[in-house]
Structure formats: structure tokens, C-alpha cells
């Protein structure tokens, strides 16, 4: 298990829809310069990939006219001095377009404004497994730094050649190379002019430490922000290539239903409407969204439905249908839990549950498909452009080289946009129509046919000594996953286990994966243990915690919050929780108020301390941290997917409650900048400790321990 959950290694949970990387790249060197113009280019090649390339059958050899496969990043310095960085990662609101450009500008010693990023385009950018797991900052940032450093070396060498000097004494700064001895200098643009120089990244090239960053580390505003406040930015849903039709897909009445009969004659008779029936796929494309809807409504289909389980049986089902024996990688044990439990001064066992919740990205799943000469181009808001490309190639029996997936900066994803559903639908319709087709899922489709953050049951057994030292810890997660399953506390006797259960609803990645569920259970349980030995919850955590980074975030959050606080009014409560995942650390404090008559729970204040190593952009980071806190309070308090017999019962914003302005408390994010620690990702971890901090505050206010997420979908009425 520790292998899989290694802190700096993406855990390819089944919920990540992990596909084996399929390395392929067809852009020839001359094409590269044709697209970008002459200049200087540097490519980062994954170290082990070079060896693999030489041995793997069918892989072409790497020679001058062809770019190598397995390139992880590259950079181009143009004749006009413009710098272009390339990454297969997608911009989905997490602000990587800005943060990565900062990184390049910083390392290459050029103004921020001269750098642009080309992202997530399978024809132009390096292969990338996907924008998930908080991997962009820890993996792509150092790679872009290394290619930038190598480009700097190349520019210095070019200047040295020009001046007939040794490169050693020359300095690269302010987008030019200077010879300090003579004072003369050449701009990067001048050095790049007329050249088509390439270099593969040297194995090791020193990069600038965070303490010496000048452009990285700064609160630079979002690139292209003006395009967003003027409505000019084109998301996938906004694209309208000439001749485009609007596509809609006929959905079954329930999950797993199969088509038994279909009368599409009325739809087919409509002017300009294309109807596609292919197995259970039924879809239409029409000149306007309105006509597409009319055509869809005119199709009369019969479906065979299958009975399936509902909300009310969910948690018993999860317990009863767990795999009899979990795989070794899902289990971890040390010491003797049984012995420690038998000898514990206090024992506490509890069961926690977590509901299915929806990502509900505001831009629904969408794609525009265009076929030309047997080749397929897709614009789609996905976190996994290359995996989408491969899926499309597979579905349409095409070579990968005939499919291009382009990801316009996307209206959020939160782990919800890994699959290529809308893309496949648009492509199928476009092939039949012979024209480009756009498919935009309705909100109801988004809530029904996407996938969910998996539900789960978590069982904890624990024991502590009379002085509050944790002695026994046993933790079982059924179904929701194993991210964040390991306890950060010092406990000699422990057992953790993840139990797989067959899927009930289609499930997948969600911001933080199961770390939110596992942290909710663990941090709620720790709070209950602190209460059992009558210790302050923060003091109790500190007593059992030696990890210095975790202690630091707890101290920082506690300090800003004013922990421990005295209650000044009735119904007031304070709670704290902490955690670490994917190389970053979080601690959250919550103040809540329970209304005396309505028993409604109101979050008054959230304070969160977060540490992810050296901060690349504090403004973007603050947005992500605050955003995760607000998203986290939805799942904590009221978000839940209700379902019955294969139907989602609340597939609308009116019935699926998510955080709105009135739900947002006073929020404070304390960002700890550790320039001595490599930057980790920050998109996910800040969500993890919100729910338990709130739950612990509710307990503090009321004495009621809430072990089920969401905790108070209807206020505290039943409690």
C-alpha cells in the first residue's frame, strides 16, 4: 500500500481511469519550426524513456528529422523574442497557464509578458497522462525550469560564438546575453534569428532555487484575464465552426437500460435533421439547438430497464459486497492492533459514511467534432486529452495520428472531466452529418450521465493510553478509495485496509479523491478520542504527531483562529482538523453556530493553513485554497446525490444543493511558503480537512457527533 500511496507518486486509483501511457508523437522537427517559426527549441525527454525507445519494438529511432517520443516538455525561443512553453496539461481554472509561464520567465530570465503557454493539444504538446493528482506543479514546473535553463545555455553559447568568446563569462538576464567585460549584449530575439537550433535536455542542469526566484513566487494576475471579464474567451461550449450542427443524444430512462424499439421516423422527416442509430446509441444533429431538441423529443423509444439498488440500501450493500479478500497493496499493518486494543485505557469504535456527490462543473461536458479527410479533430473540455484521443481512435478504428484533441481553457472539472463521453457522441454525429457537430450536455445529463465521487463506509477501531497517547488504530475503507488512508499520527499498532466493492453508480476522480472521506473519518475520530480523555483537540493531535510540517500548519491555523477559544454565545462551537496528501499539508479551524429554534447550522468562520513547499503564485494559490474550502463545505453540510432504481432523483441545481453566496463564511487562508521544499500541487489537499473541522465544531456546540457526510442536509433537526 505504501508504494501505491507514496507521497510523491500519483496513485493510479481505479478512479483515476488510469490508462497505460501510449507514447507517440508525430510532429516532425521541420513541422515544429514551420508552426512556430525559426528559433531555438529545447526538449525535455524523460530519462528512462530514451532507454525504452531504443528497446521497444515498433518504436522509430530518434533521428534529426523527427521529434523524440516521450518528451515531457519543451520550449521555443522565437525570432521575435517570444517564448512559447508547451505542456500537455490543461487549464481548468487552477491557473497553470499563469504559473507555468511564470516559471519559464523566471528561469529563462525574460519578462513574464513575453511567455505564452500552449497547453493540452495532442498535435502540438507533449504526451501527458492527464491533469489530475495535483501533478502539474511538482512535475511540469521543474521540467520547464530545466528546459528553460538549457535554452539559456544555448543562447549563451550562440552569443559566445558570435563574439568568439568562451561562454563561461557571459550572463543571461533581461532577455539578452551580456558580456560583462565589454558591456556588449545581444537580445535573445537576435540570437534566435535565422536559426533552427534544437537541444535535448542534459540529464542534470542546475535550476534556480526558490530563494532566488524573481518572477515565480509573485502574485501575477491570471493570464488573459481580460478575455474572461469581457466574455471573449471561447470555451468548448462557445465554439461555432462554419456549418456546425447542434447534437443531442437520447438517454435511457435509467442506468443500464437497453433499447428495445425506437421510432425515429418523425425526427428523420424534419428538415436539416440528421438522426443516428448505432446499437443503443441514438442521437440527432440539427441546425439549431432548438431544432435538435425538437427532433430528440420526436423520437419514441422503448427501453428494457434493470432493477438496481437505491440510496437507502447503499451502505449495507457496500459492506456486504466488499471483496472477500483485499489485494496486498490495499493493506498495511504494523505492530499488533489486537494486543494494543486489549490493553488500551480507552477504546473507541465508530462507523462513518460518505454519500455520492457530483462535481457539477459549471461548464458541462461538451465537445465539438470535425471530420476532414478521414481525420478527426475534437475540441473538448477534458482533463485527459491524450487518453481521450486514444479512446476516440479506438472507438472509430483510427490510428491515433488521425485524431487530434484540443482543450480550450475549460469551465472547471474538479476530477470530473476525465472521460471522453461528449467527444465520442459529437464525433459519431459529425461523421454521420458530414459537418461539424457540437454536443453540450444539459445540466440534467451532467448530473446523471457523468460520474460521481464514490460513496463509502469507513470503520475505525482505536485505543489510547490514559495520557492520551494513541496506541491502536484500525481503519477500513469500503469502496470510496485509499487516498489519504494512512494516518499521519504516531501509532505503533495499526492496520489500514481498503476494500473494493463493485461499482453501483459510475464513479471516478473527484478533487482529493477519497482523501476527503478518509480525513473526515480519521479527524472526526481523533476529535472523539480527545474528548474521551478530556484533552483539547489541538493539544491531543500535537501529542500524537511528530511530523514537523503537519505540526506547523496546525500551529499556524490555531494561531490565526485564536485556538483555544472561549464560547461567548449559545450554539457556538469550534473545531479543528488536519491532514497531508500529495506532498502538501493542511489544517482547518471552523467556528459554527447552531440556531436555537431552527437548529440550522451556520458556518461563521473558517481558517485554513496550507503548506505546499515553495509557492509559485500566492494569488493563484489563495484562490485554489479558498475555493477548495468553499467546495468542501458543500460536501460537508448538504451535497448528496439521491438515486433510486437507476435514476438520479436530484439532477438539477434546484434539488442538488451546492454552496452559494449565503453559505460562505468569513474565510481566512494562511499560506506557508517553504522555499526550502520543492513545490507540490495545491488543487486538492485544501479540501480535505474542511468537513471534519466543521463536524468537530458542531460537536463542540451541541455534543452531537455527526459521522455521516453530508452532515446536516436538513439542519440539525434529527439530531
Amino acid at each position: 500500500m505504501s508504494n501505491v500511496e507514496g507521497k510523491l507518486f500519483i496513485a493510479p486509483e481505479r478512479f483515476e481511469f488510469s490508462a497505460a501511457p501510449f507514447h507517440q508523437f508525430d510532429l516532425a522537427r521541420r513541422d515544429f519550426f514551420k508552426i512556430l517559426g525559426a528559433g531555438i527549441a529545447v526538449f525535455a525527454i524523460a530519462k528512462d524513456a530514451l532507454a525504452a525507445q531504443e528497446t521497444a519494438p515498433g518504436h522509430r529511432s530518434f533521428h534529426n528529422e523527427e521529434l523524440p517520443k516521450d518528451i515531457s516538455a519543451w520550449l521555443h525561443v522565437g525570432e521575435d523574442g517570444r517564448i512559447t512553453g508547451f505542456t500537455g496539461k490543461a487549464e481548468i481554472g487552477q491557473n497553470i497557464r499563469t504559473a507555468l509561464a511564470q516559471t519559464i520567465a523566471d528561469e529563462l530570465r525574460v519578462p513574464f509578458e513575453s511567455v505564452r503557454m500552449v497547453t493540452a493539444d495532442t498535435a502540438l504538446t507533449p504526451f501527458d497522462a492527464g491533469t489530475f493528482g495535483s501533478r502539474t506543479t511538482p512535475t511540469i514546473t521543474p521540467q520547464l525550469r530545466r528546459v528553460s535553463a538549457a535554452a539559456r545555455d544555448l543562447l549563451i553559447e550562440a552569443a559566445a560564438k558570435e563574439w568568439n568568446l568562451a561562454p563561461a563569462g557571459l550572463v543571461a538576464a533581461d532577455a539578452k546575453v551580456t558580456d560583462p567585460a565589454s558591456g556588449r549584449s545581444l537580445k535573445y530575439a537576435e540570437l534566435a534569428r535565422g536559426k533552427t537550433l534544437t537541444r535535448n535536455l542534459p540529464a542534470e542542469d542546475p535550476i534556480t532555487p526558490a530563494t532566488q526566484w524573481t518572477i515565480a513566487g509573485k502574485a501575477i494576475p491570471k493570464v488573459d484575464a481580460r478575455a474572461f471579464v469581457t466574455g471573449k474567451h471561447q470555451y468548448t461550449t462557445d465554439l461555432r465552426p462554419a456549418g456546425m450542427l447542434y447534437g443531442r443524444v437520447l438517454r435511457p430512462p435509467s442506468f443500464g437500460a437497453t433499447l428495445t424499439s425506437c421510432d425515429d421516423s418523425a425526427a428523420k422527416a424534419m428538415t436539416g435533421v440528421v438522426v443516428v442509430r448505432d446499437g443503443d446509441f441514438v442521437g440527432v444533429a440539427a441546425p439549431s439547438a432548438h431544432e435538435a431538441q425538437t427532433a430528440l423529443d420526436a423520437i419514441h423509444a422503448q427501453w428494457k430497464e434493470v432493477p438496481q439498488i437505491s440510496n437507502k440500501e447503499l451502505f449495507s450493500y457496500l459492506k456486504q459486497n466488499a471483496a472477500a479478500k483485499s489485494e496486498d497493496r490495499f493493506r498495511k499493518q504494523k505492530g499488533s492492533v489486537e494486543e494494543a486494543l486489549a490493553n488500551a485505557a480507552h477504546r473507541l469504535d465508530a462507523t462513518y459514511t460518505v454519500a455520492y456527490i457530483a462535481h457539477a462543473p459549471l461548464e458541462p461536458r461538451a465537445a465539438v467534432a470535425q471530420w476532414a479527410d478521414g481525420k478527426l479533430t475534437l475540441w473538448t473540455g477534458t482533463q485527459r486529452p491524450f487518453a481521450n484521443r486514444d479512446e476516440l481512435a479506438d472507438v472509430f478504428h483510427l490510428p491515433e495520428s488521425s485524431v487530434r484533441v484540443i482543450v480550450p481553457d475549460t469551465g472547471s472539472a474538479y476530477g470530473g472531466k476525465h472521460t471522453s463521453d461528449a467527444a465520442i457522441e459529437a464525433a459519431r454525429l459529425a461523421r454521420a452529418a458530414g459537418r461539424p457537430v457540437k454536443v453540450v450536455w444539459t445540466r440534467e445529463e451532467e448530473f446523471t450521465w457523468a460520474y460521481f465521487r464514490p460513496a463509502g463506509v469507513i470503520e475505525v477501531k482505536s485505543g489510547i493510553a490514559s495520557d492520551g497517547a494513541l496506541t491502536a488504530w484500525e481503519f477500513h475503507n469500503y469502496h470510496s478509495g485509499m487516498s489519504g488512508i494512512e494516518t499521519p499520527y504516531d501509532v505503533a499498532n495499526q492496520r489500514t485496509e481498503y476494500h473494493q466493492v463493485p461499482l453501483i453508480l459510475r464513479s471516478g476522480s473527484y478533487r482529493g479523491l477519497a482523501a476527503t472521506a478518509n480525513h473526515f473519518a480519521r479527524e472526526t475520530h481523533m476529535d472523539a478520542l480527545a474528548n474521551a480523555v478530556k484533552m483539547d483537540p489541538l493539544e491531543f493531535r500535537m501529542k500524537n504527531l511528530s511530523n514537523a510540517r503537519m505540526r506547523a500548519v496546525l500551529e499556524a491555523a490555531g494561531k490565526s483562529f485564536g485556538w483555544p477559544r472561549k464560547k461567548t454565545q449559545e450554539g457556538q462551537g469550534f473545531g479543528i482538523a488536519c491532514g497531508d496528501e500529495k506532498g502538501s499539508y493542511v489544517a482547518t479551524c471552523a467556528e459554527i453556530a447552531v440556531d436555537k429554534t431552527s437548529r440550522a447550522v451556520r458556518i461563521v468562520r473558517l481558517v485554513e493553513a496550507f503548506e505546499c513547499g515553495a509557492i509559485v503564485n500566492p494569488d493563484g494559490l489563495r484562490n485554489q485554497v479558498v475555493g477548495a474550502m468553499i467546495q468542501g463545505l458543500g460536501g460537508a453540510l448538504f451535497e448528496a446525490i439521491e438515486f433510486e432504481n437507476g435514476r438520479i432523483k436530484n439532477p438539477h441545481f434546484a434539488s442538488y444543493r451546492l454552496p452559494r453566496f449565503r453559505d460562505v463564511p468569513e474565510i481566512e487562508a494562511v499560506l506557508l511558503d517553504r522555499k526550502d521544499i520543492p513545490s507540490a500541487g495545491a488543487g486538492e489537499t485544501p479540501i480535505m480537512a474542511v468537513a471534519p473541522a466543521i463536524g468537530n465544531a458542531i460537536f463542540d456546540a451541541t455534543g452531537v457527533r455527526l459521522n455521516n457526510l453530508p452532515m446536516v442536509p436538513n439542519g440539525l433537526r434529527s439530531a
Partner: protein
Amino acid sequence: MAKPIELEINGNRYPVNYPADTPLLYVLRDEFGLTGSKYGCGEGQCGACTVLIGGMPRRSCQIPVSAAAAKPITTIEGLEKDGGLNPVQQAFLDAGAFQCAYCTSGMIMSSVGLLQANPNPSQAEIVQFLQGNVCRCGTHPRVVEAVRQAAKMMQEHGR
């Protein structure tokens, strides 16, 4: 097709040949390419499609095109004046009040509507007014701050 409906959008009048019950949002986006107004739910529950109709913020996904004919329509694309941003746009820009920014057009249009009716709203009034606008990225505090700043800017410049 019935006789064309005439719409006034961002100061210009256009005849529109759409069925009377077509939601205004689709006409704006698909006919005029004014894609700054977004589809978020089609149910009037998220505010991403907000435009001003006769100066009032309205969910364009819920307004039949025929009902939009009587009054001038302003979309996000019509807010800039002489190449300059509207103070609300400027305030959102200054506050970095967006992440994925898909909700931003609707947030801005709602806020412009609020400030036209109430030039100096309290924090509680801003929160109440924007309750129907969803930001799934959780950028709410910055949006509220942006609206406060915009109000200040507009008062200082007498706009």
C-alpha cells in the same frame, strides 16, 4: 415561420427568425455569436446566462425570445465603452475574482444590475443579490469584494 421578432441588443436592432418560445440565450449565442452569456443549467438556477433586459438582470435561458423584444438587451459584450471596461469588469479583473471564469459573465451582469438599482449595497445585500449565481470554484469572497470595489469606483467617478 412567424413574422420576425425585433431585438435590440447592445444598442443595435436586429430582426430574428426564431420560434417565439426559443430561450433568448440560444438566440444570443447561436444567432449572434454573443457567447459571453453561458449555458450553465437552462433552468434559471445558476445565473451564468444573466443579461440585462431594460436594465434589469434576467436569466436569458428562461426568457422566451418573444418576451425580450420590448426592451433593450445588454450582454457582457455590450458593457465596454470606448474600449474601456465597465467598472464592474475592471473590479473583477483587479480582484482576480474568477478561477475557471465560466460564471464570470453572469456574475458581472448580475452585479451591474445590482449597482444600477442600488449604487451602495451592503455586504449582506450583495450576498443576497448574488445568491442565484453559482460559482463552483468557490471564488465568492473575491466576487463580493469586486462588487464593493466597483461600487466605490462608480461613486468616485460619478458613473
